[in-house]
């Protein structure tokens, strides 16, 4: 038998919540966003001094691969959101499955990126090729490392979920891992637009 609160006589006004997860991860997130922000600004101003070079070099990038990676990360982020929702209802099994899905998509992202790097290197593109390629390789590789770190965190969260360490009343770990993963997604959204799209 289920009982539920009345809709009009007991209004539930949501109170502002603290940041999801451990506050320490948010210090880290803000610091990372700041670093990437500086790099994005540096790229934008470097481009202003070498417009033709940047435009011509950008055309050689594999935009399809970049777009595919965008879809993968956005969807992976969504699966992490679903995992978070699941553990809040105490559904550990669903949380575990959603996290596995997110990790699978993250793995695909890394694979696509590695293939893209291989293609770039095969065409003779490296850090010394020109200023655009230096920024492109440095930024995407820096982000690549953050994806790996995010996956390590998510994997740890997934293992803890599997072993029943989280519940509806104790899921800070899931929120912490999720917050970091969403940051990785957010950075890629800006990076993809800046390096692959805007011209």
């Amino acid at each position: 038998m289920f009982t539920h609160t009345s809709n009009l006589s007991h209004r539930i006004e949501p109170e502002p919540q603290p940041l999801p997860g451990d506050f320490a991860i948010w210090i880290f997130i803000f610091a990372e966003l700041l670093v990437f922000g500086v790099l994005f600004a540096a790229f934008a101003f470097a481009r202003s001094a070498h417009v033709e070079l940047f435009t011509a070099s950008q055309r050689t990038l594999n935009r399809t691969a970049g777009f595919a990676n965008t879809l993968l990360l956005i969807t992976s982020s969504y699966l992490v959101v679903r995992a978070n929702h699941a553990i809040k209802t105490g559904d550990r099994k669903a949380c575990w499955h959603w996290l596995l899905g997110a990790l699978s998509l993250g793995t695909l992202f890394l694979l696509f990126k590695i293939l893209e790097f291989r293609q770039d290197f095969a065409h003779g593109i490296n850090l010394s090729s020109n200023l655009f390629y230096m920024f492109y390789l440095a930024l995407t590789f820096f982000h690549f490392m953050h994806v790996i770190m995010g996956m390590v965190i998510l994997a740890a969260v997934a293992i803890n979920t599997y072993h029943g360490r989280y519940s509806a009343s104790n899921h800070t770990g899931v929120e912490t891992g999720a917050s970091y993963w969403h940051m990785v997604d957010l950075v890629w959204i800006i990076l993809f637009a800046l390096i692959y799209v805007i011209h």
Partner: protein
Amino acid sequence: MPTEKIQRNSTGKNTRKNTTRNSSIAWGVLLGLSVINVELGALTASKMLMIVVVILTLLKGHIVVNYFMGLRHCHAVWRWVMSAYLVIIGAIIAAAYLFF
């Protein structure tokens, strides 16, 4: 007998189902905006086009912050911090492309 208290918001709707639905809609919108951004990127370059892509990117960032990170339920100061970050980054990029 098991009892379950269903959290409802001020309009009487199930809060958890609402949250999941909102996240799903956000996901769909993000995918759609990504397609639009890529299609716009294939067009001939122009300043107006660049501004549109920047705005759409900031909108995507805003959706990730509020509906994926869940900051729309948090204290306003955190939403403002993240919004300010997105706006400042967008403004710097746009300024670099437009004026330098």
